[in-house]
């Protein structure tokens, strides 16, 4: 267990070189990571963008994609890409893109949005890619990829919840 005081650690897959608070201790030392999973962690030079997974109001987890009414509201898998990153990568709204981590990849439509901005972290630009995790290989929606093909199998030291909210990916137009 970690604690009892609040502390900041970087995610196991972090887009920055060092923990700004403790240059020598980047990740939570009490996190348990199996050797096999460690071998599947990506490097920030190869996978320079942060991905975060989330749900959307139209679809609940992997349940309601089987309901026709919900499928009508969000029929096809998409990822959200900020305007600046899309411009640099030559991605136009509606393009098919491939988002890949060191563990796997998904293909989805690109929704280009102002809502995700390029951040400046430790003096360097940093882009985030939004990956809603509500589509799958079966359902009333169009078939999609499982977002968990991307996410790492490393748990928070206390809750063992995997780091679905911050991991490293690359994106390319296909």
């Amino acid at each position: 267990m970690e604690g009892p005081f609040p502390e900041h650690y970087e995610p196991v897959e972090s887009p920055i070189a060092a923990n700004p608070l403790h240059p020598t201790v980047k990740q939570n030392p009490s996190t348990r990571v199996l050797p096999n999973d460690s071998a599947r962690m990506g490097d920030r030079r190869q996978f320079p963008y942060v991905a975060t997974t989330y749900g959307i109001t139209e679809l609940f987890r992997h349940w309601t994609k089987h309901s026709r009414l919900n499928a009508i509201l969000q029929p096809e898998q998409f990822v959200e890409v900020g305007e600046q990153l899309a411009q640099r990568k030559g991605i136009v709204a509606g393009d098919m893109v491939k988002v890949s981590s060191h563990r796997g990849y998904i293909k989805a439509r690109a929704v280009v949005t102002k809502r995700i901005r390029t951040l400046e972290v430790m003096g360097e630009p940093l882009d985030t890619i939004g990956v809603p995790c509500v589509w799958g290989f079966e359902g009333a929606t169009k078939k999609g990829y499982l977002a968990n093909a991307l996410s790492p199998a490393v748990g928070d030291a206390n809750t063992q919840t995997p780091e679905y909210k911050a991991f490293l990916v690359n994106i390319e137009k296909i």
Partner: protein
Amino acid sequence: MSIQPQDIIRRSATHSATPAPRVRDHQLEVAKLIDVSICIGCKACQVACSEWNDLRDEVGTNVGVYDNPRDLSPKTWTLMRFDEYENESGKLEWLIRKDGCMHCEDPGCLKACPSPGAIIQYANGIVDFQSEHCIGCGYCVAGCPFDVPRISKEDNRAYKCTLCSDRVAVGQEPACVKSCPTGAISFGTKEEMTEQASKRVAELNTRGYEHAGIYDPAGVGGTHVMYVLHHADRPQLYRGLPKDPRISAVVRGWKGLMKPLAAAAFVATLAGSFLHYVGVGPNTTTEGDED
């Protein structure tokens, strides 16, 4: 229809000399108020609309935007339209407008419709399509200043939001109002809704939205679906909501000015023919070649 409406104040292609049944007119005008500043874009209203009205649109595709389905259709009567707007101070605002029939006090669709009784307006203000009388000509599409009616390819008839006239007739609010989780959609008499909207606008004004206002455009006589907008001075920001909607001049010309003229010309032709017959007599022909 098994239930006969007897509260029709306007009926398409019907002269005022032969009005629709309208004795049951002791009704207050109703209105739906959509507070855009409270909407979170969850699309619950879209689902409620489909459920109550037994509509199931096609499962479409994603074209790179959040909006889905892509547009209003014969089977999508209401639709959230998402716009990302960066305001003067550089702050991002996600403007989400619930699109659908505005139920104009002076409905352009009804004015344009050539089929008697295909479009009616009830005493409470609701504009309703009576699809069994629709001939699928599409004039209502040309007449609508908000681009709302859609013609079905299945049965060549026009469809749009009914403001749940069947629910309202038995004292219930429309399905979208019932489903809204944030209370962004309200329903009541037009007077109550206007008052509620004014209070909300005053509140928004004190919270930095100096141009907040009610959208109840006078160009169509006011509407029975009103919006509270944070930027009422620029309704176009909300996916091209017209600033001053009016029925097209073509529709107004043909259905307004030209109608009595056409009737007069028709009567004059008939009278001319009759007088010619009485005064001059019928045309005669002679046997053989005429010189």
